[in-house]
């Protein structure tokens, strides 16, 4: 039942400016059930930063978790200074991830820091015999990361807002320009991207949402999202992955 524990950093490197890959090892990894779940990390032992920081899981096995994160504030800055051998306190196996692997042709869609959780998902989909392509959106070429790692698994299409790499525009532009066909899609990224996707493709999608979280395990109601067919759902328990059919655009 317990899914809390100290994890020890076994690898930590900068992928591109301010974006880091971190691997941690420890028993709490074994509570992760599926791609798209997240962990919630107490970065320091003191009172500041006070709250845990939620992070998606890029890849995992029984004993380790790989995350990719961007330094955006105080917490991630402190995290970036951690060294191999340092420990942090983790809550693991949080939330409901991507569990529907029944598709013929699927695309996974990641925007910025929404790219990492697609990694383990692509692996799972391929294991289940699904034909997968990946569509990623970044601001500009120098923001890109992890493309080679994905290319080793599946075809990758990129859109950049400034056109410095791949298609100029959004992931939707990349899907259209590359004439990608799919019967299911899986997406993670900024809310405007998710909203645009639901508008363009209202059916057969799974979208992973973010929210500022108080707890990450359902106790505080800090992350409630209005969805169709229920009064609300918690991003941290019922989510972070929601069906495109239940998402209320700009809800």
């Amino acid at each position, binding site marked *: *039942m*317990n*899914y*809390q524990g100290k994890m020890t950093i076994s690898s930590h490197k900068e992928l591109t400016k301010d974006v880091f890959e971190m691997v941690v090892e420890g028993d709490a990894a074994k509570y992760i059930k599926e791609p798209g779940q997240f962990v919630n990390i*107490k970065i320091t032992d003191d*009172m*500041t*930063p*006070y*709250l*845990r920081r939620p992070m998606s899981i890029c890849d995992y096995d029984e004993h380790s978790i790989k995350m990719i994160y961007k330094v955006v504030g105080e917490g991630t800055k402190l995290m970036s200074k951690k060294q191999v051998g340092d420990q942090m306190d983790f*809550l693991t196996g949080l939330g409901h991830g991507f569990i529907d692997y029944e598709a013929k042709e699927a695309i996974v869609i990641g925007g910025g820091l929404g790219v990492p959780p697609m990694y383990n998902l692509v692996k799972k989909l391929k294991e289940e015999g699904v034909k997968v392509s990946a569509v990623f959106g970044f601001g500009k070429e120098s923001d890109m990361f992890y493309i080679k790692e994905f290319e080793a698994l599946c075809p990758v299409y990129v859109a950049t807002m400034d056109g410095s790499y791949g298609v100029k525009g959004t992931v939707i532009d990349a899907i259209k320009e590359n004439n990608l066909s799919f019967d299911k899609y899986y997406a993670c990224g900024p809310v405007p991207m998710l909203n645009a996707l639901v508008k363009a493709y209202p059916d057969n999608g799974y979208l992973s949402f973010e*929210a*500022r*979280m*108080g*707890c990450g*395990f*359902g*106790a*505080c*109601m*800090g*992350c*409630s*999202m*209005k969805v169709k067919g229920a*009064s*609300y759902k918690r991003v941290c*328990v019922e989510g972070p992955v929601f069906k495109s059919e239940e998402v209320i655009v700009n809800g």
Partner: protein
Amino acid sequence: MAKLHVTLPGLDMKNPVIPASGTFGFGYEFTKFYDINVLGSIATKGTTFTERYGNPLPRIAEGPAGMLNAIGLQNPGVHAVVNEEFDKLSHVFNGKVLANMGGHSLEEYIETAKVLSQSDIVGALELNISCPNVKEGGMQFGTDPELAAKVTREVKKVSSKPVYVKLSPNVTDIVAIAKAVEAAGADGISMVNTLLGMRFDIKTGAPIIKNKTGGYSGPAIFPVALRMVYQVSQAVNIPVIGMGGISSGKDAIEMMIAGASAVEVGCANLVDPYACPKIIEEMESILDEMGIEDVNDIVGKSHQF
């Protein structure tokens, strides 16, 4: 081993540690982490008569050694709470709960209290007149002694269980409000709720919390909470349940020394799901070290100075 058992109106508790309302849901999220029967009681999520979705997101921000929230009393309404949430809870918790309740209006408080107080699992009501995060009702009842007394009196009339009134720290004179609710029949006082605060995104200039202001809680508010509990517990003859920033057994003991007969632990539960059981254990070991046999002996120990 120090005796931790405490008895308050409606709450006969194996120890004085109660998770605070809004930070523990209706209890069962925590059964994933530990057996919640170790707790003295549970203050359940603020309940209103009708269902509430609460405030728009983001509802959470952070401060030094604390957090801000503007949940806005999201809850499924009193009937769903009693029929569904309390029912689920009664399968995993065999103690009595402190049923926290909010309201838009005097009428809503009264109707909610009627329903809640009839539930078997409820040991006492906790009347929240201090929620800073709802537009009408909420804190305004808690900042005016007369309104505070009025809602207390009306709720007492309809409640078959003892009533604790939960006070706001955002006032000039908390003693005046405490005395007013005592005179109106309150069986106990819970204090403090959150301090009204704000944070801004320096890039956009916008308040981080969509509702603009939020309630600040956590270690940062501990000295303010201690001061208020000290003042109020000396001025009234009903028990005070103290809270605000407690995150260790040492903090809980300090709060009881200030004058609290029991304590609630709020956002510490969110950061460390094991906060409450750890606090209970630590209290016991500190009291043992200090050679104190009964936790009741430290209540208000500071008043002699």
